[in-house]
């Protein structure tokens, strides 16, 4: 990914930067046609598409974060939504309950996520393979149980936190979808930059060595505990960052947003893109998040088939593992 300023890359960057403009142009065009000619164009609402794009952006963030543990160090994390949940509830509760500003709540959420990543990571350091996966799964499920039950802390049954206030910057409230778009874009760029630099650094090479052969890595002088803990903390922090963003984006959050299938959904993105590849995670997340939104009942499929999207994700997991374990990215696993 040592990209240069080629015309293609500049064009891609411009398109990414101008997505909200295109979307609002669609809306303006539909409005113009319908008010001047009385014809209603069957175009989707640009604002709605923009919202889906933002949602996909959150998944890109999460997939990049999960990829650090699953892809770089090769440990299967089945409870990534747990950190997403921690970030969401930390930021959500701080903002809705204590009136803390987003710009303080978000870093606190990230720090809290990283702490929990370490807390979960330290006892599981010596576990590998299935047992690690099962502990991560149990940990995330326990968190869901806690937010469902501790009403005194969370505020509502099933973990509902309502009316999380919008973010303000210089006195301007950021609640429009294009605000969210640039907001998540900045977070993604920051995350991808950090992850990419980590991957290319000594740390990243240590992670790869751990993935390939733990014992060999250890005998080469790599401190397994330290590097694994670092991976857990960074990955969890990114998950919590996504959670902090979603709290103000969704305004109301509930435990449903962070359940086990959410972890699997994110895992599915990483697997589809090819574990270990940052670019793959981004592409996988973009594809599956938009596919998931399209297949949500009521868009193409009738609403009673809304659950069918998970069926399709399941098939994707099975087929990818069978025929292309390296994912869609070009690198062969």
């Amino acid at each position, binding site marked *: 990914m040592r990209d240069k300023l080629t015309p293609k890359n500049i064009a891609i960057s411009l398109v990414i930067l101008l997505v909200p403009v295109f979307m609002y142009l669609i809306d303006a065009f539909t409005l113009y046609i319908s008010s001047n000619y009385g014809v209603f164009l069957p175009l989707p609402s640009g604002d709605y598409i923009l919202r889906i794009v933002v949602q996909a952006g959150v998944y890109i963030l999460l997939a990049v974060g999960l990829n650090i543990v699953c892809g770089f160090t*090769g440990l*299967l994390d*089945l409870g990534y939504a747990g950190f997403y949940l921690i970030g969401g509830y930390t930021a959500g509760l701080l903002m809705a309950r204590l009136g803390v500003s987003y710009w303080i709540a978000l870093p606190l959420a990230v720090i809290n996520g990283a702490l929990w990543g370490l807390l979960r990571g330290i*006892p*599981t350091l010596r*576990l*590998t*393979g*299935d*047992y690690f*996966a*099962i*502990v991560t799964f*149990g*940990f995330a*499920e*326990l968190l869901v*149980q806690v937010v*469902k*039950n501790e009403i005194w802390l969370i505020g509502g049954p099933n973990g509902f936190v309502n009316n999380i206030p919008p973010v303000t910057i210089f006195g301007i409230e950021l609640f429009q979808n294009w605000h969210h778009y640039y907001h998540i874009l900045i977070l993604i760029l920051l995350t991808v930059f950090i992850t990419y630099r980590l991957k290319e650094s000594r740390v990243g090479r240590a992670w790869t060595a751990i993935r390939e052969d733990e014992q060999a890595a250890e005998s080469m002088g790599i401190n397994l505990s330290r590097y694994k803990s670092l991976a857990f903390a960074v990955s969890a922090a990114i998950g919590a960052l996504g959670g902090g963003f979603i709290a103000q984006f969704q305004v109301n959050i509930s435990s449903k947003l962070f359940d*086990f*299938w959410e972890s*699997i959904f994110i*895992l599915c993105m990483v*697997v589809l893109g090819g574990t270990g590849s940052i670019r793959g995670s981004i592409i996988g997340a973009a594809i599956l998040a938009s596919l998931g939104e399209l297949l949500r009942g009521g868009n193409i499929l009738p609403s*009673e*088939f809304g*659950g*069918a999207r*998970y*069926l399709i*994700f*399941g*098939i*994707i*997991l*099975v087929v990818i*593992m*069978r025929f292309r*374990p390296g994912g869609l990215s070009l690198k062969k696993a």
Partner: protein
Amino acid sequence: MDQFIVQLVNGLVLGGIYALIAVGYTMVYGIIQLINFAHGEIFMFGAYFAFVLVTAFGLPFWIALPASMALCALLGVLIDIVAYRPLRNAPRLSALITAIGISLVLQNLARLIWSASQQSFPDESKPNIFISDIDAQTGAIINAIPLPGGAILPYRDVFILLLAVVLMIGLNRLIYLTKIGKAMRACAENQTAANLMGINTNMVISVTFAIGSALGAVAGVMVGLREVIEPTMGYYKGVAAFAAAVLGGIGNVTGAMVGGIVIGIAETFGADIHSGYRLAFAYIIMILVILIRPSGLFGKSTSKRA
């Protein structure tokens, strides 16, 4: 004290059901070192198969139960052949991810076919002795054993417990006394060596899947009799049963039985303390066992199980 006995009995019955599911996890893990995430879904399909057979086809319960076992055995073998067999030599995590994928597919397939709403066996389809009641006028107890404190133990629960025990003993005898059982143990010990000794390992693995799935189907029908049938039942009960398998030492059949009983009782008493955390107890036991004693209560202590 009366309440204690009632809960203990409930826990035992639930534990018997968990044990039936847990052996499916543990047998498959013992032989191919795969956490068969889809096993919970097979259990759920077992309940639905029997439900469809008695409601849509009007079959008597006593025929629907073995038929559902056979169908589930077939489903289990089919899943193994289609999804897991091609990945025998792939990295272990690939197979685990495939298992999760299959579980997703089956759960949502059930949701598409039978809808997400809860269903239960209609009373007229259940055998008469399974319908227990206390006559409001005479206070006579019908089809149940009286427990201290005015509670009753339905014959249905007695049957579930007995059936679980009988099946467990049968399975134990099968594994230790028959030729196929010996082949299974050989495969669990060392598959390559077993193959070299002329054991058809693929066939043995298929038989393992078939037996585990059939027992899962029994558990599914029993849960259908006691509680409700819904597409998510495989997930919740499956996780608890998996915790039981881990507790007993995954790969160890006796351990799965004991683990099932322990988890069942823990869940029943745990629900007394705080009903919202009903499921959490199984998760906590599972995590603690893995962290403190990964080989479980009965497992052989190995330095590394990866």
